[in-house]
């Protein structure tokens, strides 16, 4: 019997498995976690949290597209204080590392949120959302300018006692520039990709479908592009990567791992299949057992040309 463990450490955060919830679709986890088995999810990444509560965008907020969907929820959230006081205690029973996705309009707002959360127990790390396409200020604008991304990451790192993950926008010409800026500023990890800026038009009304005009495209439709960007980022930086973008099976999760992701995040796929995390976990385990791989880490980046064959299929040792 081969012991194929999915346990791992991601920038100092101990994970039972490499499957995370992508910030956004999973909300605060209070809807999906009760439906799942303990241990199905490696860590919970909660929805984008701002300092003050945010109402979000006017409806319609979502629209289905071929093999994907647009969303323009607009970071509706209850604000950091209510999150810490009311929601965080409810998450304790799930005994999961909790990573808070942080979204600010200004660098100072990011700092204020981190300062607040530094005094709150039971938070494993922060994910800086510099990639939300659905807000007027901050969001994606931070993620498309390497200088701002650098400054923001550096300032958060100065006050954070916890791992800082920087979530990158795919809406850039060269993902490696931003990835390297985050790394140079001291980011512990990067996650990518957030959604692609996109839109749809109602041909009867001859107007954009979404209340916000544009939204973020997610789902299997973006997967090959997301995978390419993870591959490129993995070739450009040495810090761990959380890969995401249309993952809806263990096979697609494994593609991201082979492209260089240490962990993966699942978002849109939960809508169709709330049991997806367990399916990925079991699929990865079965793959590792079949191929006699005892540690998932041996698969991370195995498809990259410069990596040596840690767990290459077809070898016996």
């Amino acid at each position: 019997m081969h012991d194929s463990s999915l346990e791992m450490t991601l920038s100092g955060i101990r994970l039972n498995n490499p499957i995370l919830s992508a910030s956004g679709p999973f909300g605060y986890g209070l809807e999906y976690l009760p439906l799942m088995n303990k241990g199905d999810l490696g860590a919970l990444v909660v929805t984008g949290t701002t300092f003050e509560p945010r109402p979000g965008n006017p409806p319609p907020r979502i629209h289905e597209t071929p093999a994907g969907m647009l969303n323009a929820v607009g970071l509706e959230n209850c604000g950091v204080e209510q999150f810490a006081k009311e929601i965080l205690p409810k998450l304790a029973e799930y005994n999961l590392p909790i990573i808070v996705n942080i979204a600010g309009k200004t660098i100072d707002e990011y700092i204020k949120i981190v300062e607040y959360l530094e005094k709150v127990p039971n938070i494993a790390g922060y994910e800086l959302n510099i990639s939300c396409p659905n807000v007027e200020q901050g969001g994606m604008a931070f993620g498309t300018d390497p200088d701002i991304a650098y400054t923001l990451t550096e300032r958060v790192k100065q006050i954070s006692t916890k791992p800082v993950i920087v979530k990158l926008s795919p809406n850039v010409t060269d993902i490696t520039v931003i990835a390297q800026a985050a790394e140079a500023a001291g980011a512990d990890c990067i996650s990518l990709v957030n959604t692609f800026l996109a839109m749809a038009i109602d041909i009867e009304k001859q107007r954009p479908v979404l209340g916000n005009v544009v939204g973020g495209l997610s789902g299997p439709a973006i997967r090959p592009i997301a995978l390419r960007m993870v591959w490129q980022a993995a070739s450009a930086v040495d810090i761990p990567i959380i890969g995401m973008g249309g993952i809806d099976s263990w096979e697609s999760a494994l593609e991201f791992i082979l492209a260089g992701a240490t962990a993966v995040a699942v978002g849109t796929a939960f809508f169709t299949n709330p049991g997806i995390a367990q399916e990925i976990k079991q699929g990865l385990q079965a793959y590792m057992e079949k191929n006699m791989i005892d540690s998932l880490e041996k698969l991370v980046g195995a498809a990259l040309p410069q990596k040596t064959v840690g767990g290459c299929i077809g070898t016996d040792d």
Partner: protein
Amino acid sequence: MTLPIIHLCEVLINREVKPGFYELRLHAPMLAKSAAPGQFAMLQCAAGKSTDPLLRRPLSFSNVCKKTGSIVFLYQVKGKGTHLLSRISEGDYLDVMGPLGTGFKLPKPGTPIAVIGCGIGVAPLIYMADYGRKHGHDVYAFIAARSKDSLLGADTLTASCACVYTATDDGSHGVKGNITDLLDEAAGTLALCKTTYICGPWKAMAVSAEKCLGLGLACQVSLESIMACGIGACLGCTCKTTRHIHYTRVCTEGPVFQAEEVLFDA
């Protein structure tokens, strides 16, 4: 592992009852046990794993038979998802997530109630009418559609209702006119019903609710919305109500609301 809210259900019937409108009957004993009127389920429209259409479709329960363990949905073919659903054969299995949402509430025993529906909005009211009758209420139905070809539930509702009033835009069935005309026409009967249940297109629902509230009747409306998750996580289906300063989730706090809570013009 099967999640407690996911049910793999055998398709017993999937047939066109009016042009473009289908009845889907599933063998779903677990769902039938717990599905309340006004609640809904999220259906995977294609057999097997499909990425296109990506999302499940929300459909409200149109009837439930606890004895035989079957549930019925009525749906209109509108897009890709419902088109694929209409192609599913009897004997196939469908992945159904539910029951979801907050349904209709019954009033005090013994009081007459009214169900008011337009087009496919009649779907949840058929179950509500049956449920109301079984709980000792006299039920009156007011249903409207474009023509007799899209008028749903006229026959089914006669079994549970003391009277079924109908209207069609072209006059091919019942009163010639829309739901407002029908409610005016039968205002006397409507006024007897202390509680009303409304479902239909947004505007029709807004004017019907206004009329009922104007008569001093309690009024519950079942809202329709595009949904992604159906369980309150994605915040994709929100609407404006008096419950919150900002937005309210249709999928969990609704789809049924007290009419006076809903800000129809927002």
